[in-house]
């Protein structure tokens, strides 16, 4: 399962945000993920993928693709 799919499935499980909406939105906020929800999502991703995301890389995260880039960096 690739990173994007993991994020999308976690967004549905935890926050009830549908993948189509997440992909279409320019920002996480536009997709209905507020800043606290995004933090929960990061920890869930770390737990699922067994990675530690660099916090500096998260500073620039706006969209789903930014989040994927931050994880894969």
């Amino acid at each position, binding site marked *: 399962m690739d990173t994007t799919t993991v994020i999308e499935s976690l967004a549905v499980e935890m926050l009830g945000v549908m993948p189509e909406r997440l992909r279409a939105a320019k920002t996480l906020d536009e997709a209905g993920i507020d800043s*606290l929800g995004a*933090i929960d999502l990061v920890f869930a991703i770390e737990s699922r993928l067994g990675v530690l995301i660099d916090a500096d890389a998260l500073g620039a995260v706006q969209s789903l693709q930014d989040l994927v880039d931050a994880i894969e960096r």
Partner: protein
Amino acid sequence: MNALMARFAIAALSATLDLAGLVPAALHPGKRVNHALRDVRDAARGRWLERRVIESRWQSFVLQRYVLGLDESEMGVFFDERVRYEGSTWPLDERRPLILAAPHYGASGVGFLAAVHRMHRRRPINLFIDAGIPTRQLTALFEVAGLDLSRLMSGFAGSVEAARALRRGECLIMMPDVFGYGCQTLVVPFFGRLMRVAAATAFLALRTGAIVVPVFATPGANLTLHVLVDTPIDARRFAGDDDQQKIFMLTQALFSRFESVFRFAPEHWHGWERLPGTSTSIDPAYRLDYDEPLRLLRAKCDALPHLVQEIPELDLISKEHVWIRPR
């Protein structure tokens, strides 16, 4: 010499306070506070408040300057001899993650330092305050004390780092009543109004099982400091599935502590001037009847007979007037 100069400054201030009535509101924080509170029904107002506000701010400023002028060993003596601690200090010795949550109240910077001093430097300290809020003085205080203070910027990355620090059992310093644009907020009851406050304190506590310890630091005469370490709020107490509700309840519990301390000594809070802009009145939209207070007095008299025994006039006043104009 530093102490002597500081005392001289306080004495000079006291002597000029009586002339403070001549100072224009733009230069007088007490007057600005009094003006800001004109429509806040539940808050105290008056000339006495104006005077005490300026006294508190000046004392806090002088105390902070004084502490900044000390070296590391002198600072240790200061905390042992001039700081009076009150309240439950056991949470400071706990191994669980800890959030020191202080409002912008009195000499909060020195108060944080005093609380950390009380912890005997057992754990790393992180400052988590909104990026737009100046923290130069606070970081300078920690530098002088020889303490490492990691500054975490608020926002997405900073919040993740703050949660990680708490999960490592570290301490987070936060000011929940101070936040900038873009911060996630909610409203809680505060002085008869609904006030917008940051949600991060409750969120981080709930996610990490941290203990939230409210800390209040008030300056006193002769360069002394009173630090109240209030009863801790344990995030694990807030059970249930509704996350938003838990964040609200914990935040509300914290601000209810703040309110009870502010009611006792309102002059030390630096947020009064912001209050009308960050809160909404929850008074009823309609005006109360002119005799509504008398109805309430009548109800009190009925409920508390001993009150009427002690002050019989209350009974007479309420009986005489309350039914004159039926609703």
